[in-house]
């Protein structure tokens, strides 16, 4: 392997000084001057109801109120993969906390006070909080017009039901597979909803200036996707993509919760009716729990057949998702997991039904892991029970059935190269799987648990990244890209990639947060894909810049481009050791030739990347064909758990995890992701869930 100077090294974060000094600017930190208005949203007190009337008269009389808006002012739909959401509730509300009206006022206090005085009269409708109940054919329809909704071609909604999407996989001969089995286990697993709980709540500020240009500053993982959705939703007002600008400063945690568009559409839309004002909306901590994406609830029914010696012969996996009142993003979680509900195992005969069900709960959406943890909870628990029944060591069982490179996935594509077996080996060793455990305290019991995982996020097949790279006089670089550093260290790693190609230290590379007017296109910072996708775009931009430099040297010094290389911020030549041209002497001002004229000029690289091998064109009835995932990330994890016999209190004494992350571009940063993710996972298992009453 080639020796790398920056790639693979624990380079110090380039955003460190900003973040530890308090200088880092988040959306809520931006000042907008005297023309700033504050929004307070009037939210639904009902989970499912018709809106009979909205009386704003009392609220209007509060001093400082500028204007009050309701659904009548914005009869527009929006959505990422399916247009099923409204800027404000129209004739009915579908979850507790849904936006019904908004008060815009000169102070937050006036907005709050007035919002309390908006009187909304509801006529309650039957409330569906349980996905199994919502599947009942005789029950209330949450979206009676579902059949008319626009959606991406890989979704299969069923009109006149509450089923927004049904991902089906049929592979091999299921009945035959069960017939070969010596043992069949059937069970049901439930996983509740969870909230992301980023420490920064959602914030967005919209400003529609007198020239008709809309700028939105938002705390978001998806500036370009937001621009696209704002432009689409507000097209009836005459807005086009050129007129919409999204600026996303530092983000105080995302975990999927700030992907796509949720509350940001509100200030964006309100601003269009309040020319010249900046219109700000900041969600309260409470609203974070009622009106942003949540992790979907799951009921999984598993039936798995195995031979006596522990080979999986068949899997029937039915997953029913409580996807909430709007599924414009959440339905893709259902899709991704439906494609992958075999887990990282080689299973010849498979049936998967991943069913996205509308309920009267807040919209489900992306949450770290994109549905995989919920699915894996059932699958891995099921495998433990089966191994126990067969008397086979659960790690041995997993090792035996682990998917290998070249095995077929559930949808028929070949499994990518992976280090699953190596991960199993490493975790087995780290947790000392074979060493028996006994607590020295008789009131406590100790146990070990082991699980495998995989993830591939089923992005649109044309999700792309692009990059601009411009040199400055001293050969420092501005790398202009549109991914978001939501904490993972993306800016640093992108700088490392450009640094490696161009021999400029990462500390001399500045990466700023995006502005859709100035930074090139990026689909979204989601799907654990940004290092790979944007990283390739950055590499291509750096190569483009390098080629421009080499071509200039060839032109001026007549040295063949294939003998040139970059080292220590200078151009050097393999065939002429004496040749040494510092980059700072050519990347802006060009090179002076004998007659005093200059050749060259500012070097600006561009690069883009799109995974051209992916396709969502699978058979809707079987899922076979197509290549909906770019690749699967695999790994293994284990814990030692102590349980108090009397109180049931649990303590995790040790955790071991191995992830095949490919080449760890920055080992320290990826360790931060793995440990942070592991702890967030433990928190969801041990401490967190979301509970709802019938309202």
């Amino acid at each position: 392997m080639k020796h790398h100077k920056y790639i693979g090294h624990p380079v110090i974060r380039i955003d460190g000084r900003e973040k530890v000094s308090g200088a880092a600017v988040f959306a809520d930190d931006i000042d907008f001057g005297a023309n700033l208005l504050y929004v307070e949203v009037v939210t639904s007190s009902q989970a499912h109801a018709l809106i009979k009337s909205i009386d704003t008269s009392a609220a209007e009389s509060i001093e400082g109120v500028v204007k009050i808006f309701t659904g009548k002012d914005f009869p527009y739909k929006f959505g990422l993969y399916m247009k099923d959401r409204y800027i404000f509730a129209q004739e009915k509300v579908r979850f507790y906390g849904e936006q019904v009206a908004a008060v815009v006022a000169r102070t937050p206090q006036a907005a709050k006070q007035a919002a309390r005085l908006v009187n909304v009269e509801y006529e309650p409708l039957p409330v569906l909080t349980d996905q199994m109940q919502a599947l009942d054919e005789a029950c209330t329809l949450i979206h009676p017009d579902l059949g008319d909704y626009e959606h991406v071609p890989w979704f299969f909604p069923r009109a006149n039901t509450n089923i927004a999407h049904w991902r089906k996989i049929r592979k091999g001969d299921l009945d035959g597979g069960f017939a070969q089995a010596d043992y069949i286990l059937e069970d049901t697993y439930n996983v509740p909803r969870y909230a992301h709980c980023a420490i920064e709540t959602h914030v967005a500020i919209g400003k529609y200036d007198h020239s008709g240009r809309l700028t939105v500053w938002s705390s978001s993982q998806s500036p370009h996707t937001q621009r696209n959705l704002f432009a689409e939703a507000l097209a009836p007002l005459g807005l086009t993509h050129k007129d919409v600008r999204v600026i996303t400063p530092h983000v105080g945690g995302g975990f999927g919760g700030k992907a796509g568009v949720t509350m940001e559409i509100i200030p964006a839309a309100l601003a269009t009716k309040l020319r010249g004002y900046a219109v700000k909306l900041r969600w309260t901590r409470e609203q974070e729990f009622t009106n942003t994406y949540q992790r979907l609830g799951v009921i999984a029914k598993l039936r798995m057949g195995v031979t006596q010696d522990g080979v999986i012969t068949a899997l029937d996996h039915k997953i029913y998702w409580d996807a909430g009142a709007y599924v414009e993003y959440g339905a893709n979680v259902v899709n991704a997991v439906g494609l992958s509900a075999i887990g990282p195992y080689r299973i010849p005969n498979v049936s998967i039904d991943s069913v996205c069900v509308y309920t009267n709960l807040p919209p489900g959406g992306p949450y770290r892991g994109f549905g995989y943890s919920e699915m894996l909870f059932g699958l891995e628990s099921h495998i433990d029970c089966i191994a126990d029944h067969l008397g086979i060591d659960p790690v041995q069982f997993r090792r035996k059935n682990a998917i290998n490179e070249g095995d077929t996935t559930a949808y028929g594509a070949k499994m990518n190269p992976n280090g699953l077996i190596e991960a199993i080996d490493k975790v087995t060793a780290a947790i000392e799987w074979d060493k028996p455990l006994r607590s020295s305290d008789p009131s406590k019991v100790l146990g070990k648990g082991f699980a495998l995982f995989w993830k591939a996020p089923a992005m649109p097949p044309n999700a792309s990244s692009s990059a601009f790279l411009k040199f400055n006089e001293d050969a420092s670089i501005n790398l202009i890209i549109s991914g978001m550093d939501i904490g993972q260290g993306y800016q640093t790693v992108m700088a490392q990639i450009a640094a490696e190609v161009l021999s400029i230290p990462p500390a001399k590379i500045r990466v700023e947060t995006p502005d859709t007017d100035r930074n090139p296109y990026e689909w979204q910072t989601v799907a654990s894909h940004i290092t790979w996708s944007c990283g390739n775009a950055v590499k291509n931009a750096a190569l483009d810049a390098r080629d421009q430099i080499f071509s200039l040297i060839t032109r001026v010094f007549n040295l063949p481009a294939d003998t040139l290389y970059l080292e220590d911020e200078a151009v050097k030549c393999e065939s002429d050791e004496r040749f040494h041209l510092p980059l700072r002497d050519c990347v802006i001002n060009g090179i002076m030739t004998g007659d005093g004229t200059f050749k060259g000029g500012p070097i600006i690289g561009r690069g883009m990347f799109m995974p051209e091998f992916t396709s969502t064109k699978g058979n809707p009835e079987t899922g076979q064909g197509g290549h909906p995932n770019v690749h699967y990330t695999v790994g293994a994890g284990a814990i030692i758990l102590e349980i108090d016999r009397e109180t049931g209190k649990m303590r995790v004494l040790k955790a071991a995890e191995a992830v095949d992350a490919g080449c760890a571009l920055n080992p320290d940063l990826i360790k931060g992701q793995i440990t942070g993710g592991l702890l967030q996972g433990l928190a969801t298992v041990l401490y967190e869930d979301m509970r709802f009453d019938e309202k």
Partner: protein
Amino acid sequence: MKQVTFTLNDEIRSCLVKPNETLLDILRDRLGVKSPKCGCDHGDCGSCAVLLNGKSVRSCLIFAIECEGMEIHTLEGISKDKLTTLQEAFIAFNSFQCGYCAPGVIVTATELLANNPHPTLEEIKEALSGNLCRCTGYTPIFDAIMAVTWKENK
């Protein structure tokens, strides 16, 4: 409205405040000091921590009107000219990810080290129990503080 005068990051500042305005809002919206962040507005997350007469408080729970004559330090004041050893350690140990909780965490840890230069891990955990971080899992934060302690011990 009442005129309140206090020392903010070693400078005397005055402003007219309403009785229900919090110190956090005044610092951020009226005095332009943005390092204290609003995460919960209920005193749960610690992102708004500032030092009030040397003691860390959640500025979202303090009314500005109570601060007459007090000494307030925010992260801006703690590292006026250069980063402190603790801040440098936060960079070295990747003790932040998104960075939103970092100002509150560093303010609280600064108070701890001022009162107890060599805290044990348990004392560090206790001191930071009111600061939430959703990204790091806390270990890198404890590591950075321990490293500073260790450095000064040497």
